[in-house]
């Protein structure tokens, strides 16, 4: 390793001109990246990670930003050091994509939808390397092989939307690597992806780095990913660098309060090993002397039997149903009063559909749902409306699940208006108390959702769900979109409510570490079926189904000492859940492993 850094950021300051005056995106950040090194930049949303990286590419200007201070020194192949902060755009164009490559967060939107993968891959090559069309295509093919995309020849001719998210992200990576850049900037390259795919992508970047010796600036807010990838870590907080150090230093002996708080908020897989019941997290600065486990009761609240939900796929000349999406297939489970059942699984496995089917927000095809003994499936619309008094939902996206045009108090009051459970001053008081309950200041009553942060919004959503005093809350990825620290707070809030009010949760998530933290019972879903279910302890400590085992392996652990290698990964692509109309899948049969631990024995598709 050369000790001459490839890029040095010195006292970077970036401002954005907005209507409300100048906004400082990055205030004062300095760090450097050495050849062959992976520097992870971590911090919460809005802390300036992306802005720093875009500044290095001089792309902030296109978003309305301006570098108003500091230097960005980049060591060019030829010609020594260049201060990117003052270089002109023509020069930058020869550096971008050539000497510095960049991978973006959203694989879904980072590719131009109307050009083929091949075209987009070869563009940079032809510009920077002056290759002919054929040469460029040959190189593109090579790149696709390098990032291990199956059937690379075919992919070249495909459009981005024809690829899965993971494959798209691989294409983006191939694109960034096309000209063998000396510095690779990866801005949250895996945030939008499933754990299994995340694991593969991380392994891929790691391997490429090792093979090519490229320096990597890795931006993320996920401490577990940092632990997996980084050599050194830069922690950012509200536009400033607050701490820098090697991974070990940061994880073992964080210095800055913020870093400490951040690390304390990260749920680590395996933390709960040996504990029977979930317990709230110990957050830094919160004076919780004792964390009480949440026991719940042993009475059944919700019993679901053989629930099946299918979505018709229309097609053909007469728009008839030609096939069905088997979203939920013969699913049975029970939730006990005051306890949490979690459903985990990869994207598209039917978790949300199962949750929505419970409230009949999507109409299940068959099966039985008993809530407190009441047969939900047998209800008419009026009865169903009443039954929903006892079941509420909290959704994944706090930005989307609140009406942007309604005051928060009204949104929380709305369920009570609808059912007429409270009126007038009573209602007013109830809303205030709900705000207190979810720890939102009463000054927020008259505010609008866009004035709140994500975590605050999720609290509003929870308050709304609580308004009708339900017995069961279906939390569909309720914390997935939140920053770790906020996520921890919301999780604690939920657990606290459970302890205090005896609520039951159906907790839907793809994050194994979070699930481990909150659940009494866990169901692992794959392709619409539950492949393994049991008490959390049983499933996490003794996974039986091969899919569960693979899933556990893929989850990155927020501990630099427990890194995983690429060789451990072995994922099959998920088969399609679409089947012709006359297809009748077999019933699920389970093997009892222990008292409350079952494993699917029939074919799951895995």
């Amino acid at each position, binding site marked *: 390793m050369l000790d001459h850094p490839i890029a040095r950021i010195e006292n970077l300051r970036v401002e954005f001109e907005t209507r409300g005056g100048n906004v400082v995106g990055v205030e004062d950040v300095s760090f450097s990246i050495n050849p062959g090194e992976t520097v992870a930049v971590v911090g919460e949303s809005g802390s300036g990670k992306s802005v720093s990286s875009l500044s290095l*590419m001089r*792309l902030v200007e*296109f*978003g309305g930003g301006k570098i108003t201070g500091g230097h960005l020194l980049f060591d060019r192949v030829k010609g020594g050091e260049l201060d990117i902060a003052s270089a002109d*755009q023509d020069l*930058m*164009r*020869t*550096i*971008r*994509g*050539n000497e510095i*490559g*960049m991978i*973006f967060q*959203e694989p879904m*939107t*980072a*590719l*131009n*939808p*109307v*050009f083929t993968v091949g075209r987009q891959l070869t*563009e*940079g090559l032809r*510009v*920077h390397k002056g290759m002919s069309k054929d040469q460029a295509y040959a190189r593109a093919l090579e790149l696709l092989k390098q990032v291990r995309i199956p059937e690379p020849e075919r992919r070249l001719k495909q*459009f981005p*939307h*024809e690829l899965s998210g993971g494959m798209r992200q691989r294409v*983006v990576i191939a*694109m*960034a690597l*096309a000209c063998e850049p000396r510095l690779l900037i990866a801005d949250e390259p895996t945030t939008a992806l499933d754990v299994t795919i995340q694991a593969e992508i991380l392994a891929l970047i790691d391997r490429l780095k090792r093979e090519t010796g490229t320096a990597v600036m890795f931006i993320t807010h996920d401490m577990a990913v940092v632990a997996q990838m980084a050599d050194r870590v830069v922690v950012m907080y509200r536009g400033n660098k607050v701490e820098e150090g090697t991974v070990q230093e940061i994880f073992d002996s964080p210095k800055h309060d913020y870093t400490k708080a951040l690390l304390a908020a990260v749920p680590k897989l395996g933390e709960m090993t040996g504990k029977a019941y979930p317990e709230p997290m110990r957050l830094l600065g919160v004076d919780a002397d004792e964390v009480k486990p949440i026991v719940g009761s042993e009475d059944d609240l919700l019993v679901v039997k053989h629930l099946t939900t299918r979505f018709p796929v229309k*097609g*053909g*000349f*007469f*728009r008839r149903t030609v096939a069905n999406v088997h979203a939920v297939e013969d699913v049975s489970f029970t939730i006990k009063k005051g306890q949490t059942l979690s459903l985990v699984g990869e994207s598209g496995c039917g978790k949300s559909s199962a949750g929505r089917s419970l409230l009949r927000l999507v109409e299940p095809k068959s099966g039985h749902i008993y809530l407190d003994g009441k047969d939900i499936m047998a209800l008419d619309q009026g009865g169903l409306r009443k039954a929903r008094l006892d079941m509420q939902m909290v959704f994944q996206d706090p930005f989307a699940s609140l009406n942007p045009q309604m005051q928060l108090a009204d949104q929380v009051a709305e369920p009570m208006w609808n059912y007429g459970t409270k009126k007038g001053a009573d209602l007013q008081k109830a809303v205030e108390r709900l705000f207190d309950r979810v720890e939102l200041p009463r000054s927020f009553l008259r505010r609008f959702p866009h004035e709140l942060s994500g975590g605050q919004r999720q609290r509003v959503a929870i308050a709304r769900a609580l308004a009708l005093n339900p017995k069961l809350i279906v939390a569909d990825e309720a914390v997935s979109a939140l920053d770790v620290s906020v996520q921890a707070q919301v999780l604690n809030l939920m657990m606290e409510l459970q302890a205090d009010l005896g609520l039951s949760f159906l907790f839907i998530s793809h994050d194994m570490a979070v699930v481990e933290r909150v659940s009494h019972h866990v169901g692992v879903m794959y392709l619409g079926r539950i492949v393994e279910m049991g008490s959390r302890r049983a499933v996490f400590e003794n996974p039986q189904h091969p899919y569960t085992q693979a899933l556990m392996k893929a989850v990155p652990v927020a501990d630099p000492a427990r890194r995983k290698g690429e060789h451990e990964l072995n994922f099959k692509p998920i088969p399609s859940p679409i089947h012709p109309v006359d297809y009748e899948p077999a019933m699920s049969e389970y093997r009892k492993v222990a008292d409350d631990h079952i494993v699917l024995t029939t074919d799951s598709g895995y």
Partner: protein
Amino acid sequence: MLTYFFRRLLLSIPTLLFIALVIFLLLDLAPGDPTAQLPLTIPPEVREQIRQSLGLGEPLPIRFWKWLVQFFWIEPQVLIDSIFNTHFSAGDSRVLSWQTRSPVMDIVIQRMPQTLWVVGTAYLVAIVIALPIGIYSAYRQYSIFDNVGTFVSMVGFSVPPFFSGVLVIVIFAVNLGWLPSIYDTTHKVYDWETFMVQLRQMIMPVMVLALQITAQLSRFMRASMLDNLNQDYVRTARAKGLNERVVVLVHVLRNSMIPVVTVIALGVPQIFGGAIITEQVFKVNGIGQLLITAIQANDIPMVQTLTFIFAVLIVLFNLIADVLYGLLDPRIRYD
């Protein structure tokens, strides 16, 4: 895609039949009388005879049925006959105009050239002007160019053609005497000189029409460009080190054109529909003028046929726009 196309095509048949019926009922309900324009010296009994000879005595369903048969069965035969010199339609009565007592379709075909020339040229000119303006305005949003462009297109939007048309006639034809004020539909182009004559008589109507269309299209183009300029893939393209020109004119433009192309396709029926007011002002006796005179003369078969042809074109180009959308945007699949 093909199934989609044919399914939509099939579905549009009942829609069109219904439209035909509605237009027919509307026109039938409409007050007015084909003999109203005749001099008062023609006595009422004669008027009544004229009405009878126009077929007005027959009950409504029969008239509608007759029209349907004539339009959908006989007229296509006439078309085939004229192309292949066959004689399918011999002896069948066609859709006759009440004003001219001649087949409506013949007149429509006769009127097509001037309408296509003038309105079509205006449309092309407008596209050629509007797209670059829209692209550049969006790229330099809120720049002077954008502001001026916005202002000009807004003005183009706001000045009704019956105002601007008369204004340019007074300026260029009457005061300056540069251009003819009356369009000559009999003019034929066969050499450079006659071409120049044609050009001169087309300048004013094309200018007035193109101003309007340009205004609309450039606004559209600008909005569409703005939508796409903020997309992530643009940043990706820039991160590849592509030239700004390539980024904008290849990556962004290609995406922005998708909605614009469909808007352009949706505007095509207007070309065939002619521009009622502009044609009137410049005496370009095209389809638009045909429609308005037919309405004024209560020439129901003519109005019915013309409006129905527009309806068909609108439905058809709606479909074409959808198909185009699917062709241009690989994400969209109709199946």
